[in-house]
């Protein structure tokens, strides 16, 4: 993906730490480089420090340690209003006492842009979000989705190069969300702006972003394009957090460059890809995606290790079948199979054998 050599990094966090109370670090050692034009999503559970990072970038919080650079310049000492960063707040923060037009021309007025110019820009911004007819209304007279669009237009109207969005779609229903997700990415790409987007909805993160930074415990656990993140999680947190995931626990028996033999707790041995294990004898969590598990022998590689499984439950979900198995003492092992004419429908109580390609089974940290 993007080349992140320090020369052309547009946004850069360098060993940034943040503490509110002087006792605990909310952000621990954050390092991040973003090229211009990238759509980066910060994804993570509640309280993992996403908003804090955004606020430090916007200038509303100061980093306790480390440096934040924008376009190569350190911005720690630039006040927020001089940073020229557009921001969409979670609750939109549209000024309730101003009309939509006034809201949009506010950033232009404080930049001392002439009246006619201002009106043209406001109109263009409103048209861009398809809200051209609503200029005379107050924010309270708009629906949530409309307010969201106005907030977006307001953050873009003064043509910032960097736009921050803090869970802007949190308050919308599913359908509107999906529509807005598309509109936001479309706009961002059309205008070529750099976006830092915060969410704790992983679907949103995966569908919208160029890269996703997974936050936990004040650290970036992994930063990668969506497909890489899903298919090659670097640790068990990311594996658990992104998408559905099966976990088996065990001990590394043999370790080579591309293959690790892991002995599960009930004595069975499986082939895995070593990702986050260092030596024989390490405890590990093995992660397999439900759709990568096979139970029809003809589809498996010769010599693959097989595991015995008991079918517990079969769930018909339309496009896929979801089957819950009991495997190696884990009763919540899920497999997913596509609903095709030749697909087998398993019945509860059935004894089967399952397997997978070694590269789909990742041995991660315990």
């Amino acid at each position, binding site marked *: 993906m993007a080349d992140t050599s320090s020369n052309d990094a547009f946004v850069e966090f360098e060993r940034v730490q943040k503490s509110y109370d002087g006792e605990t670090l909310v952000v621990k050692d954050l390092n991040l480089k973003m090229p211009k034009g990238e759509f980066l999503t910060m994804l993570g559970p509640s309280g993992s420090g996403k908003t804090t990072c955004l606020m430090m970038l916007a200038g509303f919080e100061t980093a306790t340690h480390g440096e934040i650079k924008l376009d190569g310049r350190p911005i720690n000492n630039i006040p*927020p209003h001089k940073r020229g960063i557009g921001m969409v*707040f979670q609750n939109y923060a549209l000024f309730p*006492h101003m009309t939509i037009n006034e809201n949009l021309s506010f950033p232009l007025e404080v930049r001392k842009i002439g009246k006619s110019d201002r009106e043209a820009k406001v109109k263009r911004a409103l048209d861009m979000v398809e809200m051209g007819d609503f200029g005379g209304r107050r924010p309270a007279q708009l629906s949530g989705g409309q307010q969201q669009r106005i907030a977006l237009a307001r953050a873009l109207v003064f043509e910032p190069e960097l736009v921050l969005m803090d869970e802007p779609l949190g308050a919308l229903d599913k359908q509107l969300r999906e529509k807005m997700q598309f509109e936001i990415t479309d706009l961002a790409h059309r205008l070529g702006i750099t976006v830092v987007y915060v969410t704790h909805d992983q679907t949103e993160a995966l569908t919208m972003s160029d890269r996703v930074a997974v936050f936990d415990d004040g650290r970036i656990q992994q930063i990668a394009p969506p497909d890489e993140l899903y298919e090659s999680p670097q640790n068990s947190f990311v594996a658990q957090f992104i998408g559905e995931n099966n976990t088996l626990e065990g001990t590394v028996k043999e370790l080579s460059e591309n293959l690790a033999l892991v002995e599960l707790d009930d004595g069975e041995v499986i082939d895995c890809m070593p990702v986050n294990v260092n030596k024989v004898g390490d405890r590990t969590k093995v992660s397999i995606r439900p759709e990568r598990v096979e139970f029809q022998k003809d589809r498996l590689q010769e010599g693959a290790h097989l595991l015995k499984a008991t079918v517990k439950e079969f769930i018909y979900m339309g496009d896929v079948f979801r089957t819950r198995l009991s495997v190696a003492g884990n009763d919540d092992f899920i497999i997913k199979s596509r609903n095709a004419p030749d697909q087998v429908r398993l019945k509860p109580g059935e004894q089967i054998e399952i397997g997978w390609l070694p590269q789909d089974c990742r041995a991660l940290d315990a």
Partner: protein
Amino acid sequence: MSDLKSTGPQTADAPTPEDALHEAAAYAAREQVHAPGGPADGPVLAADGTPLKRSLNRALRRQKMRALALIAPLLIFVLLTFIAPIADMLFRSVENQIVSETLPETVVALADWDSEAGAPPAEPVFAALYVDLFFAEAQKLHTRLGTRLNYEKTGVSSLFRKTGRRVGRFDTDTYTDQITALDPGWAEPATWVAMMQNNGNRAALPLTARAWDRWTAYLASEGDDPAKEDIEDVLFTTLYLDLVATGGSGAADARIAQAAAAVGGFETVTLSEQFAAADKDWLDPEVWGTIKAFAPNYTAGYFLNSVDMQKTPHGIEARPENQQIYMMLFKRTIFMSIMITLSCILLGYPVAWILANLPTRTANLLMILVLLPFWTSLLVRTSAWKVMLQQQGVINDTLVWLGIVADDSRLVMINNQFGTIVAMTHILLPFMILPLYSVMQTIQPTYLRAAKSLGATNWTAFWRVYFPQSVPGIGAGSILVFILSIGYYITPEIVGGTTGTFISNRIAYHISSSLNWGLAAALGSILLAVVMLLYWVYDKIVGIDNVKLG
């Protein structure tokens, strides 16, 4: 605290008065939506076939009745203790029955007198006054009337008091003597009692009949029997006057006809001379003009007084320069109330801002400090200011000690406007801070952040984004403080001296010292009107639904 026009969620199941209001408002809103170009196919029907509107109205009415029942105790309480006194006060400011009740004959007799002619009225008016004053003196009402008329013309009070002492000793016994000489029966009370029961006699002697009725009523109120009390000179005077006027025609008693035949040769008493002898002011047409001007039952006189005008026999005119005080007091009251409100805004706004932006725990702690003044007696706080500000007080002592002020030119900070404004600002400050605080609490900090992220400096963000949203708080606080201060009494009384007193101090003076309740009521009514006017202006400019208490 709640929004004056709360829109909060209705959580309780029980109907509250607000419920009904909300429903009604919502209903009105729905109606408005449907009114223009509503469905053309007749009214919407409810499930039971009645028009939807009617069944909705019925449901609403029930709710409203329940709401009304809930607020009834308070409503009755307020009616009795607040609305009724105010109505009474408004009434007192125009009520003026004392003249026509105390001097009924005079008022009627004066109707034809021309106050512009420059001459005192004719003899019959004096005769009427003689009758009225006799009874007024008997009931000790003449001093009250004198006091009342003295508000309008100085000297009338002593005139009435002086004349009241003399009225029993007028030379009218001349008539008594001459009439009883004709027939000794006239001296018998029983004769009069019998005579006055006959309608023919009463018609022949109208003035006497009216005087007799007042006489018997007076005796009854004293617990005396008219048949046993000696007949007073005044009744013989009225008898004489009636006989001269009507000739006693139509009277049933022979005694009356006999007297009527004789009165032509009587020695007469000129009552105007009698009054002039008691006090020569009775010949002054101004006195009579005043009585005539205030004869009606209702008068604008109190209100005219309240705005430094007066009603004279010659019409409405300004009071003499040296008696003009109320307009100045009104202006001062309003000016100082505005100053107090402004200083409350200036001092209270930053405090409310800090309170609203602190963590709740700290804010609550500091809130106690704001509320602390409420827990100390008003008198104590005001007196404390006296100690602080007086010339030998703490502040002056400190300034002298620091050498900023010379010992012989200590600052005068109390018993003037400055002291009043300082003390009242302190006392009323919580009323500004509380609404400001609760409004500011609802302004989310993200608005300021949003403004800054859009490029506004701290000041612009505050002025363009935060301040407009806090205006409802300023409005609510200002209305509270202004209305409280415009009617404030204790503090200006204690620290106001002569230059710092308010109109309310004058009202209190008229209520408790000068006992001119009518004037006090008029002043109070004007104050009320001023407050309502300001409220109305505020509503026009800012909009009263913009006032938020939380």
